[in-house]
């Protein structure tokens, strides 16, 4: 997004808008699992849905590095608002990688002009870690395509205007294809909002496709190119999960540092006890290390040499760091950290999913090991 000073100005503006308009709503959003229209409106108005849309289409044309900076800033306040932007950006990635000029015009236009939202629909009941096992089918019907199947765990489900869905057009890995499915298509419906441990304000739903007819022109990339497109998309997307993890870890750390300076026990601030000081020092070091790795992965992508292994390392390390740092932040706040009066327990619940989605951390290890050793014959 241009010079660092522009980004600094953008982040400052973002911070201020969030502090004034969103932060006061967060406890309520967490409690009720609501994602208020006012919050969607504000994030849209600020331009966050157009971050990855190319400048030629009226977007901001952000690098992956800048996208990660914005997501990190959002997550410092709340992971649910970060993932609203993150999942949308991930769903647009296949269009950036393989969309035809007509498709880019057709789908980026509504995002920029009308604030239309995308969601990413890959996971299925029997295909989580094993993404190549998906069963949703896409069958040709004249100039159209008919999609049938059930998707699970769709972030932005029910509030999205378009679903980037993967479906089977043939057997095996080479039989996967990506499609853009408009939310208002007949035969498309969404399930109830899942009741979650964390990320509660972010809607997660099933997506039911029952004979959904879409124009064949909504197919992104060539038929059978879906798995390759998925791999490239996840390589670009995993650093944004890492950014979410680093942001929320930083948010928890900031709260813990402030608390340690204020809370007194044994006649002095708990921040003067070595036991607390060393904890905070280690937390800060881990967050910085995760941040460095994440921006290295993003920089490789931006320099045209995306690395699946580096992206996986960034997500693995940042999400494990977020889990540890948020747990320690709760510890530093003592009994008060366990209450909903402070945001650290929410950060701790939100941290967990960063070790799970867009590939669990076991899967991250598989990706890294494959890069080191080649494919396993297990």
């Amino acid at each position, binding site marked *: 997004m*241009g010079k660092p000073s*522009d980004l600094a100005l953008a982040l400052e*503006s973002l911070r201020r808008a969030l502090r004034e308009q969103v932060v006061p709503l967060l406890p309520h959003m967490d409690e009720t699992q609501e994602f208020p229209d006012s919050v969607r409106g504000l994030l849209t108005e600020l331009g966050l849905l*157009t971050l990855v849309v190319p400048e030629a289409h009226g977007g*901001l044309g952000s690098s992956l590095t800048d996208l990660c900076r914005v997501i990190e800033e959002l997550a410092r306040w709340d992971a649910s608002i970060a993932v609203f932007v993150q999942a949308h950006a991930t769903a647009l990635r296949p269009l950036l990688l393989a969309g035809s000029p007509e498709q880019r015009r057709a789908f980026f236009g509504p995002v920029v002009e009308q604030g239309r939202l995308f969601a990413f629909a890959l996971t299925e009941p029997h295909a989580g870690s094993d993404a190549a096992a998906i069963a949703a089918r896409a069958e040709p019907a004249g100039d159209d395509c008919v999609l049938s199947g059930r998707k699970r765990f769709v972030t932005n489900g029910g509030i999205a205007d378009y679903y980037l869905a993967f479906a089977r057009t043939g057997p095996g890995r080479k039989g996967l294809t990506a499609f853009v499915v408009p939310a208002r298509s007949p035969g498309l419906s969404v399930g109830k909002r899942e009741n979650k441990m964390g990320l509660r304000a972010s809607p997660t739903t099933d997506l039911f496709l029952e004979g959904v007819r879409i124009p064949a022109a909504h197919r992104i990339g060539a038929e059978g190119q879906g798995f390759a497109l998925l791999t490239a998309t996840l390589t670009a997307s995993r650093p944004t999960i890492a950014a979410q993890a680093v942001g929320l870890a930083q948010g928890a750390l900031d709260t813990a540092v402030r608390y340690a300076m204020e809370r007194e026990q044994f006649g002095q601030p708990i921040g003067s006890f070595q036991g607390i000081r060393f904890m905070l020092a280690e937390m800060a070091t881990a967050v910085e290390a995760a941040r460095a790795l994440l921006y290295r992965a993003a920089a490789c992508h931006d320099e045209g040499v995306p690395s699946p292994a580096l992206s996986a390392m960034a997500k693995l390390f940042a999400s494990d760091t977020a889990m540890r740092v948020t747990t320690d932040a709760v510890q530093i706040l003592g009994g008060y950290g366990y209450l909903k009066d402070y945001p650290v327990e929410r950060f701790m619940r939100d941290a967990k999913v960063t070790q799970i989605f867009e590939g669990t951390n076991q899967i991250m290890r598989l990706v890294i090991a494959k890069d080191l050793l080649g494919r396993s014959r297990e």
Partner: protein
Amino acid sequence: MKVLVLVKQVPDTATQVKVGSDPRAIATTGITWIVSPYDEFAVEEALRIREKRGTGEVVAVSGGPERVKEALRSCLAMGADRAVHVLDPALEGADTLTTARVLAAVIQQEAPQLVLTGRQAIDDDTGAVGAQVAELLGWPCLSWIMEEAIAEDGATVRAGRQVEGALELFDLPLPCVLTAQKGLNEPRYPTLKGIMGAKKKEIKELGPGDLGVNVDGPQLELVRLEALPPRPPGRIIPGEPKEAVRELVRVLREEAKAI
């Protein structure tokens, strides 16, 4: 219609102000600088005037060191069309009359139909510059406005200011100077798109020679800033509410003599 907005860059409202090593200034290390909030109302109002009329130009003007460009960029990101930055060492530590002279000279060059600014800057709170600029130009000035509506022909403006229990409405001929009170509007946040677009907008820099203003030193000379004595700590009155209230009333009457 061309609307010119005078903005000042000030320390963020959350700043812990400390007297600097030069006792006539505050310590500026580590300060975050922002556009003075009342000036933001002025910028917002100017943008709304342009949007309502469908045409026009909004020019943001500020004087001060290089960092002031950030404040101007933020006005451009909100939607101002261009900016003017007066970069003159004589403005460092200038009194309000000097500042007003410089700004009045810019206004004469730019010849807008309307000048908007905040009712005061939140750093030194003098509240003088808007009125002084109007005086130097010989233009009418209405301060602390809560609303305004420019006549369709662009010849006059009706503006309201809040007074005890009422809204005072005035008609003024244009050009004039209006200063903004809180409540005039809700300023928009600079969008990411606005911030990117701001890069391409012009910030014209004017130096000492460019305005033909003779700056002959401040008439108001700042002697020094004195830190206030630390506030005595609060006192907690313990005990059952009933007795505590009785004690509080006694203290307020006999010791503080407040009631």
